């Protein structure tokens, strides 16, 4: 989780990813942020989040994204 928070904070240093829970619903992350996060996460965790996984429930919070990463790592 720490690694993920670090990735997200580097892309959007103005946000507290431990507290935000409506990153997509409230339009806090824009599309450029999302593709950067996905690119970094894919590279650093060795997984393949693709366009099919771009659902609000996977990106609304760092915890939700971490859940997706964990699920993919276990598959």
């Amino acid at each position, binding site marked *: 989780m720490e690694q993920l928070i670090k990735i997200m904070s*580097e*892309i959007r240093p103005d946000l507290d990813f431990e507290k935000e829970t409506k990153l997509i619903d409230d339009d806090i992350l824009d*599309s*450029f*942020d*999302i*593709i*950067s996060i*996905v*690119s970094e996460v*894919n*590279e650093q965790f060795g997984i393949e989040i*693709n*366009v*099919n996984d*771009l*659902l609000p429930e996977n990106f609304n919070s760092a915890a939700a994204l971490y859940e997706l990463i964990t699920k993919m790592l276990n*598959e």
Partner: protein
Amino acid sequence: MNIISLEFIIFAVVFALVFFIVPKKWQWAVVLLGNIAFYAFAGIGYIIYMIIISLITFLAAIKIEDIVNASKDELSKAESLEDKKAIKAVVNQKKRTICTWALVVAMGIWVVLKYTNFFLDNVNLLIEHLKPGAMIGNVSWALPLGISFYTFHAAGYLVDVYRSKYPAERNYFKYLTFISYFPHIIQGPFSRFDELGVSIKEEHKFSYDRMCEGAARMLIGFFKKIVIADKIGVAVNAIFGNYETYSGVYMLFAMFAYGIQLYADFAGYMDIVCGFSKILGINLAENFKRPYFAKTVDEFWRRWHITLGTWFKDYVFYPVSMGKTGQKMGKWARQKWGAKMGKLLPGYFALIFVWTATGLWHGANWTYLVWGYLNLIVITMTMQLTDFYEKLKAKLHIKSEALYWKIICIVRTFILVCFFRFFSAAPDITTAVKMLKYTGINMQWNVLTSPTKLFVDVEYIDIFFIIIGTLIITLIDILDEVGVWEKIKLRCPMIIKNLGFTIIIMLIIMSLGSKSDLMGGFMYASF
């Protein structure tokens, strides 16, 4: 059927009555019959294209879902992680093949019907240089009503099922009801099956409050279209059509007037169809969020034709920017120029596709491509120069939150989007360039001493309607922008509300009797 007609009002009233009279479980079937009846006014023969496109996407979605369901059993029996991966790879390949072929055929029909003449015109330009006189004749088929919209609705549905966003619809007629829903078929909004499709299938009780709310919104829509768009459009057509005569200030006026006309026309239509759907209890997606209050061109496109923007974001921007090429570009840019470019470059790459598609979607003409690329250039330049602007603002002691700065940004954005539309308003690039040229020469400043002359071919009474109408809509938008309009609507005494609506109805009726009126269809319907 023109939505601004007595014919439509009668159709809408009969439709709503039947919708609420029949047993609730059959309401969706009433919608389907209504859609077919509405479509029949434009020529029932054209419905064949809708049936083919909807059938292809319907069957492909079911096939994709069946493949996924069948694989679940295989996956549960797989003994190792490698076996699971192998099964998933085969399933994904099958899904991709079906989805791709279905999209190629469905969208291919639309592409052939919409772009054949554009393609032939360009081939002819080439031939003219190589072998003068040998030209290929244009095709004369008409573009079926709403094909650009229902093809995109169908394509979006199929991709969503492919992405397992929601289950496939198993009843073709219910799916066809969604695809052919007449309020969104002429000029949108772009609807999603998991929203509108579900909303149509639900059972709807009649609600008096909802009917009043929906009717009020329809009234506002008629007001925008009849009192503003159709009247100011007379001046726009007269000036743009004679730009050599009406140069300078006239052209500048027409440039802004065209912006007002487009908004009143398109947002007016949305108010009518969203209001009508509201009466039925069916939710249509909102397409506008006070676009002329946007402070940047990028923000403008998040407020104008919102559903088109989100469609392209979901089905073009993300697949391209997250595809292999986009991701490679991002890595390369990050290593070469740092994190910022690593973040921006894949997005810029995808935006080229988005704006090419947006331009061509609006019209099969180079003018629309130029218009799209002008938007693209300004959007990417704004993103690229963000740091520079911030430093400059700090140096000049400009605070982004200051009201005067917000107003400057809003005015600048309005000027830019109106300026870009020179290209979408002109029939070809040469004319667009000439129109631009004539905007800058022979300024005719003297017309400013009697500004009513700017409203070329518009009667005095209609100038009054346009000004009053624009002021009312601007005031409503300002109140909405600052977040008080909804509160006013809730707390306003009934007598004031009734007075307001009486004024609006009177203005609509009075303006219907005037001479300067386009009385045409909606502008976006031609896209």
